[in-house]
């Protein structure tokens, strides 16, 4: 066991994977010598050589195309996209090829690629460095999308992603990279893709979230329960966005009768929309209040001066919890 923050948990996961599987290669912009702009791959080139961990020229379209070729030819590429908003060129290959390869070849050529990329804002970054585009990836058939929020989950989900026979996109909340540390087991272990995690048990409202908002939700819920000592809120960290843990969410909503979904991505056509639609389909007769969401607005992610308006925060979540609990038919 050692105490790691999220970024060190990434490094540890990659180290374990490279040790375990000779086929794992790691690349992306500045990933080799420097260890990436966030230092997630620090030390790997030194340990495993330039052939297995290297800097790629700035050509995002090629990374995934090349990874596809590597994957269907027996390697396990782990690609770092430096920032989501700067990786549009890669979508050509992510949407057009990566997600479809297994289907197109009727199983002959699966594409077990792992793409790691930072997600989300609240870090005073430049334009296009704070995007949360999980829906684009999640909307694409053939791709799995995970979003760990703790060091334990980060390591376990990355290892599960590398072990997975299908392409997985790992979204790493930038704001949490160095936010806190946690005990992480040495060596190999996985966190199963598709399983949520209950942070709090509760009876009156179900809150579903992932990524950096797990922290905001905890704060809001603590505040809410202080004000309403007779009420309790169940908090679910999805951990995997696609396929999400429908069972866990449905069971919880059937118990509480109330649902709030929280994420920083823009609202329309969002993960919240998907979960709310599914809960309506599956749990309608259990509901005691309208389903609710706290999300970013449908706006271009503002630069720093305006970002605070857009960011989800505990106050926004708290206000919504009040609204839900006070709802009367």
């Amino acid at each position, binding site marked *: 066991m050692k105490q790691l923050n999220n970024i060190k948990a990434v490094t540890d996961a990659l180290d374990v994977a490279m040790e375990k599987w000779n086929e794992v290669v790691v690349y992306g912009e500045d990933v080799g010598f420097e260890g990436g702009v966030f230092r997630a791959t620090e030390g790997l080139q030194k340990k495993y050589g330039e052939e297995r961990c290297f800097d790629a020229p*700035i050509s995002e379209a*090629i990374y995934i195309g090349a990874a596809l070729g590597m994957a269907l030819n027996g390697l396990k590429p782990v690609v770092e996209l430096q920032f989501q908003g700067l990786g549009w060129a890669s979508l050509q290959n992510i949407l057009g090829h990566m997600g479809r390869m297994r289907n197109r070849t009727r199983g002959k050529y699966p594409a077990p690629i792992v793409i790691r990329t930072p997600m989300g804002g609240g870090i005073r970054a430049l334009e296009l460095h704070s995007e949360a585009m999980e829906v684009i990836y999640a909307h694409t058939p053939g791709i799995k999308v995970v979003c760990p929020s703790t060091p334990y989950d980060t390591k376990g989900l990355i290892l599960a992603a590398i072990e997975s026979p299908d392409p997985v996109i790992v979204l790493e909340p930038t704001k949490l990279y160095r936010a806190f540390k946690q005990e992480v087991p040495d060596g190999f272990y996985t966190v199963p893709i598709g399983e949520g995690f209950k942070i709090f048990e509760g009876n009156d409202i179900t809150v579903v979230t992932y990524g950096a908002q797990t922290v905001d939700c905890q704060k809001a819920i603590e505040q809410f329960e202080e004000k309403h000592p007779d009420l309790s809120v169940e908090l679910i960290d999805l951990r995997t966005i696609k396929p999400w843990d429908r069972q866990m969410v449905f069971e919880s909503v059937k118990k509480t009768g109330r649902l709030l979904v929280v994420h920083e991505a823009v609202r329309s056509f969002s993960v919240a929309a998907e979960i709310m639609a599914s809960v309506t389909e599956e749990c309608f007769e259990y509901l005691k209040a309208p389903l609710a969401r706290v999300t970013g607005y449908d*706006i*271009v992610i503002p*630069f720093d001066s305006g970002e605070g308006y857009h960011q989800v925060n505990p106050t926004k979540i708290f206000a919504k919890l009040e609204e839900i609990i006070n709802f009367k038919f």
Partner: protein
Amino acid sequence: MKYINKFDPQKDQVVRILDVDGKVIDEKLLPKISDKQLIEAYKLMNLSRRQDDFQNKAQRQGRLLSFLSSTGQEACEVAYALAMVKGQDWLAPGYRNNAAWLTAGMPMHNIMMYWMGNEFGGQSPQGVNLLPPNIIIGSQYSQAVGIAFAEKYKKTNGVALTSTGDGGMSEGEVYESMNFAKLHELPVVFICENNKWAISTPYAKSTKSLNVAVKGIAVGIPGIKVDGNDFLASYAVASEAIEFARQGNGPVLIEFDTYRLGAHSSSDNPDIYRPKPEYEEALTKDPLIRMKKYLIDKKLWTEKKQTALDEEQDLFIRQEFDYAEAHKDYPLEDVFNYLYETKTPELEAQYQEAAAFFAANPNAKGGHH
């Protein structure tokens, strides 16, 4: 033509007029430029350098977010921006083009506001055809191609300039843009400021190409390599390239051979990856020093004038910074107002929701203010 198609990039020939001591190497290569313009250019180079220094300090005090400095690259940036015809030509810059923006007419306080995280900083004044900093590497090349297409279509005679780094030359979009521009014989000048580093990735890890200028050959456009730390050579070639494109000869690719003297960005530490001897050698080729020596030799400049200029410019920079700081925040409606010409009903509802929320929770904007 004096330079284009005369200097062969396949032989790695470089246009150079001033040596590192600011002495003219070849009188025949000198461009037409007045003494007044030379001084103006030098002042702009000096201004951009001092702005970079000031911003670095402000960034460390937390008064500025990250930004990317032009330190070391001022000669070519001022040169190509000065060679543009204001109000007619266009610049689609990258993010590391401070000296070029200033020269092309972006008010300094706008640039500062941009790096403070205020979108209004990206709005160029009326009559200045200048796009905001481009963060997505490569896409400024295709935008410039579109601008040039429209100029040709409308017969308005403007030329589009666009700049990226040596790392950016690996982007497919860059190649695609050059190919498209040549097919349509568009008036566009493609610029690469080869400062040798793409964050921590050196030129040798980005390409095996002899130089950047030869990358024009595959698409049939002339490429020319210039000493980008030599203002005179940079100005000479940029002016010729702009006129070449304006006359309907199609695009040109210019490689400015230069060096990034600063960090990649204010959150980067080049000491980790950059060999010290390389950096120290680059310091001896500082474009400002060369230009200053040249001007002093020509009796156009003195140390006394330099002291006065530094003081005047530092005062100006502080005033611009104060203005930017005082204007860096904006009200909630501004994040909703510029998405569509008129807000969609959904967006209007979201705005009303947000307005009510922030009225009830004035401190909930949170973050950093």
